[in-house]
């Protein structure tokens, strides 16, 4: 099998090809980074509240139950578009209050329902988290998810 190919040739193809593909990949990632900052996300809209909200999101490991833009734990609903699901496009204040009320009323304790823990968030943290989810909902995701259910 493959008598024409020597080990040295295979090795050179491996190293040369890997460097080539890595450089192409790195170049495209650099462009994607630029695209994220200038086109697909609202870099200018990254307020202190959004930044703190992302920290709240991470500090409480929300992603180990939920998904955000489809990445996460698949145990609880997608939150990349939760702002839209709560009607935030038309009524931002209403969505914000509804999200905060939902988070604060957890856990439901209902038998046989998945339970979201109570995270003891301050009003500021809740607001920041809502700002982060609002900011995230405006990312240009090439039309994903297919519908509001996420």
């Amino acid at each position: 099998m493959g008598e024409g190919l020597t080990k040295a040739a295979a090795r050179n193809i491996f190293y040369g090809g890997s460097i080539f593909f890595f450089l192409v990949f790195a170049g495209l990632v650099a462009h994607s980074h630029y695209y994220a900052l200038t086109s697909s996300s609202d870099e200018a809209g990254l307020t202190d509240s959004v930044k703190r909200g992302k920290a709240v999101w991470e500090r409480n490991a929300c992603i180990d139950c939920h998904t955000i833009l489809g990445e996460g734990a698949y145990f609880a609903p997608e939150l990349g578009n939760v702002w839209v699901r709560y009607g935030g496009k038309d009524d931002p204040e209403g969505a914000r209050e509804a999200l905060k009320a939902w988070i604060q009323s957890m856990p439901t304790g209902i038998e046989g329902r998945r339970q979201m823990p109570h995270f003891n968030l301050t009003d500021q943290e809740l607001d920041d988290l809502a700002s982060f989810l609002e900011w995230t909902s405006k990312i240009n995701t090439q039309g994903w998810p297919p519908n509001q259910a996420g």
Partner: protein
Amino acid sequence: MRYPTQGIAYTYFVGTLALFLAQVLFGVLAGLVYVWPNFLAVLVPFNILRMIHINALIVWLLLGFFGATYYLIPEEAERDIHSPRLAYLQFWIWIVAVAVCVVGYLFRIHEGREFLEQPVYVKVALTVSVLIFLYNISLTVLRGRRTAVTSVLLLGLWGAAVFFLFAFYDPANLVVDKIYWWWVVHLWVEGVWELIMAAVLAYLLVKVTGVDREVVEKWLYVVVSLSLFSGLLGTGHHYLWIGTPGYWKWLGDVFGTLEVLPFFAMVLWAFYLVYQGGRDHPNKAALLWSLGCPVMAFFGAGVWGFMHNLHVVNYYTHGTQVTAAHGHLAFYGAYVTVNLAIITYAMPSLRGLTPFNQALNMWSFWILSSAVAFMTFTLTFAGVVQTHMQRVVGGYGYMDVQDQLGFFYWMREGAGIVVLIGAVLFVYSVLGPVREQLTAADVARQPGLEPAG
């Protein structure tokens, strides 16, 4: 064991197997929450169980890679490990960091990017541990014989360390965050980890088939070429819906599809060499794992990956139980089996024995492999129903759909319990008392092979 310092691997493998059991146990607990949602809901919520389940997986696979490296490098480089003391220091830094991390998780001390939840001091400790490791083995290899196995293995290990540095970069812009998060996650498991896997497999194939090293190593380069040529741009299949440009759709389609090839090549490679070798290695269990590894990887990483790779499919399946199904079989096939293969191969010589408990070990292969496969099937069915109701037909909320999937989650939990039984059997077969053992005469009758060395 031809070199005394290969014995370092024993300590590593014991740690590896302990964490393996912990990983599976926490998986069973997390799976139980799917069917009994109130179970542990206040004490240890699902996110913590899941964090421990997956973090334990990552750290035990890496610990196994370290052990495998300590075992095979002296034989490949034809000299002892540079510093056994550093090797044990590295081990204990790793173990203490992992223990601190897990206990911390139980008390809600963690960060919050998926798979990278370790507090920053734990990340630093793990990095220090890896740097000690890389120093130790790189020096050993540089001063000894260099083979394709050691070159590819070292490149894979160094690559894993370099890409892990992106774990320290957490930008405020979620899109940028996700772009580089994948540099750790994808470039590990669909990139440099495949190098480690292929190198360990190459070493095993040289040993168990007795085929000429030149042939094995040439094909090693072919396999890892396929891995990186497809895998680097294959990252495109993760850059679809996270705020990245549209050209990744077709790059992900083409190169993601090509990611099946290295695994298919590994299947051909392993079976061809075993056929060519035509020899009966006394360690039959190690041979079974060495053949099972590429087959399960081909189905888990290759076929199940391709299933939702194309962006027109992924648009509907992204972030559903289909992903979970693929994740389980891919990690089992590619990385769990290669670790259990080298452990099965090395353990007799590490314990100063001829191959032992082979029947039990081979039972554990079949039990683990069928249970993980069954779990994958049930999650696939759950994912297809979920995708169809939630995304294709639409009109159902996330939780309404989940309520329809209980039957599949029960079957998954059953499969998970069988995985736990299989894991316990494996650990018992390699670390437990020796119940049946080949005699030295049995081993000597196998032509042309050193005893299990």
